[in-house]
């Protein structure tokens, strides 16, 4: 699975809804504003990203905006991975 697919899949499997088709979200939708995720999700997402992609997200990157859309999350992961490979 690509990073993008993994992230979409992780979000979809955590949606608080009875029917995933009731909760469509594009790669640019703010997933928190849609109200389909519970309040613990931001923290769980962070743990998932750090574990799945074996990286550390620093305080500076912890702006909710970085985690608010699929594209932003993928962007953050790719930025971190680039930082690691150039280090």
């Amino acid at each position, binding site marked *: 699975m690509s990073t993008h697919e993994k992230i979409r899949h992780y979000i979809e*499997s955590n949606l608080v809804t009875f029917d995933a088709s009731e909760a469509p979200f594009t790669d640019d939708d703010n997933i928190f504003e849609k109200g389909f995720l519970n309040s613990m999700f931001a*923290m769980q997402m*962070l743990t998932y990203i750090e574990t799945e992609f074996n990286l550390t997200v620093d305080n500076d990157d912890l*702006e909710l905006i970085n985690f608010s859309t699929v594209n932003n999350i993928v962007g953050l992961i790719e930025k971190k991975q680039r930082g690691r490979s150039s280090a």
Partner: protein
Amino acid sequence: MKTLTDVLSQVEQYAAAELRPRAGRFEAQEAIPREVLQGLAKHGIFGATLPTIYGGLALDPIQYGQLTEMVGKACNSVRELLTVHVSLVGESILRWGTGEQKQYWLPKMATGEVLAAFALTEPEVGSDANGIDSSYRQEGDHFILNGRKKWISFGDLADLYLVLASRGDEMTAFLVDSTMTGVSTTKMSNLLASNASHLAEIHFQDVEVPLGNVLGRVGGGFAYVVNSALDHGRYSIAWAGVAIAQEALDGMVTYGRTRRQGGRVIGAYAEVQQMIAEASVNIHASRALCIAAGQKRRDKHPDAVIETTMAKYFTSKMAMKVATDAVQVFGGNGFSREYPVERLFREAKALEIIEGTSQVLQPVIAQHALRTCYQQGWWRA
């Protein structure tokens, strides 16, 4: 060098000699004496899960759970200190703190030179933590903090508070030294239980907090600091439930084997054995849940949070049930302060209220089941 087994066995001996026999007195005196805190510090437990570079014991989640059970069996208030100092504040600084904050606070916390408390709840805001009223505003190189916190365990004793405050829709976590100008406390007394836990109201009046005392990001207080702190807190409370229930079962069995009625020890009666059997099975199930959650936490598994939530939900209810049965087995003596079961009964109740009430956790667990147990093919209506 001391091995982990040495540490745990020394703590167990200390708990047996200094905590268990005195826990009722601590409650009556509404305080844990200083020398007891110093004794605990000597065994390193204030840095239980902190890395050794900060002077901690570096216990993994399962070992920390065992320590929590061991301490909690002997004295619930000392266990509560571990919950707030290690799980809520220590883990938060370790996770979200800057290098400087970790270097400054964690070694002092590990030795117990600094005791820490977690200040989220307010007189008007509990379960709906997102709606706290305590406020901050920025003025130059510091924030000005105002507000009132209530029900803060060890608020009356702590040197450091992790305080949550809001500015409009955003919430931020601050590390506040209890000696800062404008900080004052009022001890809470005459509580159902946890009287030795130094609960307090904390008042913040125009407290000047340096920008460098923000924990995590400005605005990251709820999504990250509160949620992860409460997750650690729930793990601790889950083990606290096992602790109270195991202590109550030990009491039931010991009393049941020595109290005679109708020419037999009461433990020989099937009805008493039923309570003992139920307690025994429930404690085993609870401990298994805690260990499973601990393994997931150790492995940073994505389900660690939900399994911790389930463990806290289950063991807190279980502890209440077992402690209630323990009072039943003790009969009239269960009502007497001369026996510790009445205290366990009172202490168990708090576990269903703190770190997310059972009612607040229920929908989180239900939502998880509704997501994960849905079978596309079968059982459809």
